[in-house]
């Protein structure tokens, strides 16, 4: 039995409604408890800001990031955020680290932990390539991990939707999650991945997918119903059609509206829309491109069935990586950049393209503003998850920098003052004076994740929760983030303490210990007869089309380090 007492913590824990109150936190055997004995180890937080461990609910940190690594060997030497990037030699406690946007697996674990983050959710696992994701998970130290499996351009999914077989569809989703050891359902540009196999794309929610006679709207609704039938802990996680195109805000709002009729099977949202920054563009071309954030925020303010995340842009180099194959082709052509393109057989497409966000480019400046506009115009922080869609909008090591944009209008003005007049005319950010406080920031980086992924033991400091805790060198009453943003950035860049399951993993911004993290996955129960009928259909797929056999396809438990199986009961 190991016990610890954190004294004098200035706790900011929105899940419990605690807003910067000084209290003690008791820990026993990796969990937060009511009280500890007199022999507990003591950490004196000395009134410093204390939050649950950060939870990145949408990041590309295992899997496709590896394509980014081999396309960008030069990323290994980039050191744009000293202490959190670049080449770092091995120490007694840590392995060698390289990179910025596509760091090696060890660096990903260390650097998230330094930021006070303890859980990450990989945003895109192709079922067929799930083994690779789990191989990388195994080598990412410290953090707890989970991943979202891709279903949005899958032949079997589209066939079951076309043939109106919702039960078999749910059985297939359950099987796909088991095969990939995934946590939830990701839908990327529904139908677009399949269309890309024919060099095409889908242009909107009602544009049929070639050869399948289903529309993106039907795919979204079919998968959402399956998701709720299986009572999955997360809602469907949607990357909308038309990403990256001027005028796409309309498609985004249309997609959100579509989900008003979905009844969530659990106490959470019916829809999560991801990296909305890339999907909140107005205008009709790159010439008259402008922010669509006010329209999207307006809709979201009146909706109570959904959550979204930002996909905030960070100026400098980034690497886009997505299952949205046609978007990456368009990026590569437009930017004359390196391009990787992959066909995931019967399941999806994918692409990787490096790019550079420059404040001098009016398009990039407006993109930067849109992310912040979304965060600040949506009134309820419980609808907003903070992300950069790392490394699509920029590397996660820039989160502390991005927090200063959210917390300080003065800091934003500083950045905006470097923009062209044309850029400023196309955004609404300069007129927004809202500044987030630590409580709202904790909602967007911890609290909402706990709720939207139905993980009551994560993202909060309740008794019974995991003792994943971050203490930052900030005295909440004595700092004004609106003017002292440099201090805020410094404190969030290297936690005074990060605890993972009650163990000190970071102290004074340096790695102290590198325990192995857990991997969460969802096992949804399906009646045997439906499962057997579904298996017959996919057996045909494997026999006729796949390059691998079904027995070689499944991720086995031996692939998972410290697996945590979340069981749900499907309703049939």
């Amino acid at each position, binding site marked *: 039995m190991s016990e610890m007492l954190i004294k004098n913590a200035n706790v900011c824990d929105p899940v419990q409604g605690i807003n910067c109150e000084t209290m003690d936190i008791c820990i026993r055997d990796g969990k937060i408890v009511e009280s500890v004995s007199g022999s507990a180890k003591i950490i004196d937080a000395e009134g410093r800001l204390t939050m649950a461990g950060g939870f990145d609910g949408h990041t590309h940190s295992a899997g496709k990031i590896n394509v980014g690594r081999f396309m*960008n*060997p*030069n990323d290994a030497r980039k050191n744009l955020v000293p202490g959190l990037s670049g080449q770092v030699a091995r120490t007694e406690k840590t392995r060698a680290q390289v990179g910025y946007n596509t760091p090696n697996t060890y660096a990903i674990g260390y650097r998230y932990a330094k930021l006070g983050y303890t859980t990450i959710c990989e945003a895109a696992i192709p079922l067929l390539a799930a083994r690779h994701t789990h191989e990388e998970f195994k080598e990412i130290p410290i953090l707890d991990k989970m991943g979202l499996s891709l279903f949005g351009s899958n032949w079997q999914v589209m066939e079951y939707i076309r043939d109106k077989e919702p039960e078999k569809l749910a059985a297939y989703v359950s099987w796909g999650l088991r095969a990939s050891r995934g946590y939830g359902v990701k839908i990327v540009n529904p139908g677009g991945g399949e269309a890309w196999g024919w060099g095409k794309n889908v242009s909107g929610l009602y544009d049929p997918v070639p050869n399948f006679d289903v529309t993106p709207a039907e795919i979204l609704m079919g998968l959402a119903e399956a998701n709720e039938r299986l009572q999955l802990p997360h809602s469907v996680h949607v990357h909308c059609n038309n990403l990256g195109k001027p005028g796409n805000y309309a498609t985004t709002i249309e997609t959100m509206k579509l989900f008003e009729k979905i009844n969530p099977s659990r106490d959470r949202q019916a829809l999560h829309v991801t990296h909305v920054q890339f999907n909140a563009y107005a205008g009709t071309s790159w010439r008259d491109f402008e922010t669509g954030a006010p329209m999207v925020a307006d809709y979201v303010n009146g909706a109570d069935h959904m959550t979204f995340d930002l996909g905030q842009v960070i100026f400098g180099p980034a690497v886009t990586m997505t299952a949205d194959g046609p978007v990456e082709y368009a990026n590569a052509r437009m930017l*004359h950049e390196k391009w990787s393109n992959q066909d995931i057989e019967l399941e999806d497409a994918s692409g990787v393209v490096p790019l550079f966000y420059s404040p001098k480019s009016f398009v990039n400046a407006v993109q930067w503003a849109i992310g912040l506009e979304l965060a600040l115009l949506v009134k309820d922080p419980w609808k907003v998850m903070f992300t950069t869609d790392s490394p699509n909008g920029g590397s996660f090591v820039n989160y502390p920098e991005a927090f200063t944009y959210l917390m300080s209008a003065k800091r934003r003005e500083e950045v905006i003052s470097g923009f062209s007049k044309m850029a400023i005319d196309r955004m609404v950010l300069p007129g927004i004076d809202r500044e987030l406080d630590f409580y709202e920031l904790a909602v967007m980086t911890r609290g909402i994740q706990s709720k939207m992924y139905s993980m009551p033991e994560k993202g909060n400091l309740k008794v019974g929760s995991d003792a994943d805790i971050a203490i930052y060198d900030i005295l909440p009453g004595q700092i004004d983030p609106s003017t002292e943003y440099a201090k805020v950035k410094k404190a969030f860049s290297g936690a005074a303490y990060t605890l993972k399951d009650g163990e000190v993993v970071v102290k004074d911004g340096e790695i102290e210990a590198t325990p192995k993290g857990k991997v969460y996955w969802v096992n949804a129960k399906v009646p045997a007869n439906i499962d057997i009928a579904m298996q017959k259909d996919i057996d045909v797929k494997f026999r006729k089309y796949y390059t691998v056999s079904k027995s070689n396809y499944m991720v086995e438990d031996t692939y998972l380090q410290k697996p945590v199986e979340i069981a749900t009961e499907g309703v049939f």
Partner: protein
Amino acid sequence: MQIVTLSLKKPNKIPIEADNVNPDNFAGKTEGEIKAIPVWYGNGQCPLGDFFNVSVEGSDSAENTKIVFKGDVSRVKRIGQNMSAGEIEINGNVDMHCGFGMKGGKIVINGDADSWLGCEMMGGEIVLNGNASYYVGSGYRGESCGMRGGKITVNGNTRDYVGEHMCGGEIIVKGNVGLLPAISNNGGKIVIEGNATMPASEMKSGTVIIKGEVSDLLPSYKEEGTEEVEGVIYRKFTGDVNVGGKGVLLIK
């Protein structure tokens, strides 16, 4: 004037990474101080004096410091990395990445150079009185801009990918080059007095002059008359049209 003479105590098999060996770092230092400068040897660091005999004459600024390598240093990498002034003379063969990121000053090599000579060079001059291996004046792996300034003269031959991703500066090769010289470059000037194969693929801008034979000229170049350079008339090609390039390729 300060002259620092280095000679290997015995040939090394494991490479030494001499990225600290440049006039900027040696200027004004005594023999003892120079011997103490750390260099990478395999996976650990050792003082320079463990490997080299060091003698120092005089003491002066970087501009007035000359480093002379006596004998072969074919397993010593990164000599002259990031140097901004002064001179290095190498009397023998040298290993990879000599003059990497060089900003000024001069390196003279009286021997052969391994790959990546003058990689990402920004200024100064390299004279190679021997043959070079791959990637003279190129970019770091994955980078889109290689050599940006300065001048490299190779008095012998080079292997493949001379001036890969070059963005500025000048490379002159007196002998022959291998495959794909000036690949993906975006500025600068390359003069090849000998023969070349498949020159200037994906060139966006810049000038490439080939005085010898060209094998496998790429079909993605447009012929546009002739141009005279220093009294010699060349056939003029522009491209690479595959990347909308406006580079100029002059061949006989």
